C-alpha cells in the first residue's frame, strides 16, 4: 500500500463507507483507491471530477468562491468529496445511512495529509 493508500484506508474505516479514492480533477483519473469489489472506481472518478469542475464554475459564477466540500445523497447511497491541493479530490462512496459528519472529518484529514 502506498502513502495515499494508508490515508484513504482511514476513511474506509468509518462504518458505511464503501470506498475512498483520490482523483485528479483535471484528468478525471484515479490516483489511488481503496474500494470494495464491484464498485466502478474509474467511472466514479471520471464523473466526480467532471462534476467537481462544474460545481466550481457554478460557485465561481455565483461569487461563492471555491468549493471545499460537497455531498450527494441518493436513495441507495451517496458520494462525499473534499477538494485537496494539487488539483486533487478526495472522494468517499457511502451507504445511505452513513455518519456524513464523520466521513467529512476524515475526508478533510485526508486532504490535509496529501497536501
Amino acid at each position: 500500500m502506498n502513502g495515499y493508500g494508508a490515508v484513504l484506508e482511514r476513511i474506509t474505516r468509518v462504518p458505511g463507507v464503501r470506498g475512498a479514492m483520490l482523483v485528479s480533477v483535471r484528468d478525471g483519473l484515479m490516483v489511488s483507491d481503496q474500494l470494495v469489489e464491484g464498485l466502478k472506481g474509474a467511472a466514479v472518478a471520471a464523473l466526480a471530477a467532471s462534476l467537481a469542475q462544474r460545481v466550481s464554475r457554478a460557485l465561481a459564477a455565483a461569487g461563492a468562491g471555491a468549493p471545499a466540500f460537497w455531498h450527494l445523497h441518493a436513495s441507495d447511497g451517496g458520494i462525499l468529496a473534499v477538494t485537496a491541493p494539487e488539483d486533487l479530490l478526495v472522494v468517499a462512496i457511502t451507504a445511505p445511512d452513513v455518519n456524513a459528519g464523520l466521513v467529512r472529518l476524515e475526508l478533510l484529514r485526508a486532504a490535509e495529509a496529501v497536501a
Partner: protein
Amino acid sequence: MTARAVEPWAIAPVDAFVHEVQARLVLVMTPAGQVLAQWGFARAVDVMSAAALAAGIVASTGEIARLLAQRPFAVLNHEGERTGVFLGSFPTGRGPLVALVVYPLDASSVGIVQLFFEQLAADLQEASPKEPATKQVLAADFERELADSLNALFGR
C-alpha cells in the same frame, strides 16, 4: 449537428459519444485510415489528413509494440494546453476500428473520454454487421470510392 457516416449503423453510437464527452472532433476509421464516420469536421481535406495521420500513429505505435514483444497499444492519449487528443482501437463485426477524439480540457477530461469510449466501442460492436466487409477497393476504383465516401461523410 449529427455525425456523418459512410455506413448508417455508426451514426447513433457516435452521436451519443459526442454528447457525453463534449468532443470537438471524432473520427471512426479502420487502422488503415478508411473513414467510417466523422463528427465536427468541416472540410474533406481535414478528414483525409486526420485519418492519414491517425493511421500513421496506429502503424508506428503498433510497430513499436511489436519490437517490444507487446500487444499493440489499445489507447493513446495526448494532452495539450487546452485540447486533448485520444486514439483508441476496438474490435467490431467489421474488423478492428480506431476512434480519434479531440476534446476540450475545460469541458471534458481523459477520464470521461476513456469511460465513454468503452461505451462507444460496445455500441459500435453491437451495431456493426456481423460479417466483415468483403468488397475490395481496386486501384482503378479508388478515386471514385474515396469521392463517394467523402460525399457520404459531408452529406452531399
